[in-house]
């Protein structure tokens, strides 16, 4: 932790960044906080929260960047947060030149829980790199179910939805100003559980965008396994378009442009 404090302190005092978006310990709870040069003493309370305590810092950073477009910020990132930032750069929501990373590696326990394919960021200032989990057992289980069993299972999950929009509101990648989930003609209004397609529409929007942070699933009061759905979406995007969501290597998202060639063929009738 001292390494992070030192790094942030020098960034702030040298004026390289306008603020550090990290966590502060308040009443025993780690809460997201913006540390600034004017309140350097607060850095003593800066923490790296335990593995399972997380907030959508990427989302807060977007709000900060919109409000202070000229300023550079440093932000505490885990592997997933960095994937999110990469994706947000590609979607033109953040400027990579105005973001400085403070990296935190997740503990193995957290990586196993998340089935995380990249549990540490490119810069590690805290924690030890642990082993990534390349395959998701939860996705494999659904894949192995028969069609009818899978359908019944998903229907059971979707029927519990209370339409709180928590999954969307917590999502660091949901930056659209207008949301299809609120479209009065495409989505029935005032109905609980919502249309069966509600989660599918979100899953489509998350494909090639979801950075698998899992906040949606944690926010969901109905315990819908949203993450499994979105993980599969990303696997399909990888399979169909060879696109790695959240990496800077594989170009832009397949949904961002029409593309220069067609590699897919229509399925036979």
């Amino acid at each position: 932790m001292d390494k992070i404090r030192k790094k942030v302190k020098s960034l702030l005092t040298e004026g390289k960044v306008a603020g550090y978006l990290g966590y502060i310990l308040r009443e025993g709870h780690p809460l997201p906080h913006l540390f600034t040069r004017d309140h350097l003493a607060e850095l003593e309370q800066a923490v790296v929260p335990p593995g399972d305590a997380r907030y959508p810092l990427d989302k807060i950073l977007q709000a900060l960047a919109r409000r202070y477009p000229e300023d550079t910020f440093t932000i505490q990132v885990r592997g997933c947060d960095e994937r999110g930032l990469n994706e947000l750069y590609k979607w033109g929501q953040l400027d990579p030149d105005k973001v400085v990373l403070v990296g935190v590696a997740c503990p193995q326990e957290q990586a196993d829980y998340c089935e995380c394919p990249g549990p540490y960021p490119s810069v590690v200032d805290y924690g030890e790199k642990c082993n990534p989990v390349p395959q998701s057992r939860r996705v494999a289980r659904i894949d192995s179910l028969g069609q009818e069993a899978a359908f019944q299972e998903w229907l059971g999950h979707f029927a519990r939805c209370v339409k709180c929009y928590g999954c969307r509101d917590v999502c660091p990648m949901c930056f659209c100003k207008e949301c299809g989930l609120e479209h009065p003609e495409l989505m029935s209004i005032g109905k609980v559980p919502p249309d069966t397609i509600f989660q599918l529409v979100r899953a489509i929007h998350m494909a090639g965008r979801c950075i698998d942070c899992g906040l949606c699933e944690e926010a969901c009061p109905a315990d819908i396994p949203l993450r499994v759905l979105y993980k599969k979406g990303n696997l399909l995007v990888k399979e169909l378009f060879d696109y790695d969501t959240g990496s800077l290597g594989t170009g832009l998202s397949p949904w961002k442009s029409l593309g220069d060639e067609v590699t897919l063929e229509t399925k036979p009738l």
Partner: protein
Amino acid sequence: MAEQEFQPKIIGFFCNWCTYAGADLAGVTRLQYPPNIRVIRVMCSGTVSPHHVLRAFQKGADGVLIGGCHIGDCHYLRGNYMTIKRMRFLQDLLKFTGFEADRLHLEWISAAEGPKLAQTVTAFTNKIKSMGPSPLKRLTAKAA
């Protein structure tokens, strides 16, 4: 009363420049195809969002047929590049959730392919008939 044959409701999203014109050609050449399809004309198959397809299923469609120009023939040059990306992805995602992905079909039909249109619509309708009503429709009916 004798059980009536199941008549599926099929929604067609046909592109204005190719498939819709192909349907016109099928019409003027008096080719027969089943009347189960309700065609919605769109300016480009690339304007059909997966959301529209899902909405059609939600509202009780038993099948959705998307018709677009052949690759390379798009009036907007590359609009159908997006169509195939979206629809292939949607088919695979539907399969994962256990919804019969075969209820969604994409076919490239040009303005000159009247017979292909009639044939595709006939084959698709027969397929949906054999599959029976959409499970989503059964669900909606139960809730109502």
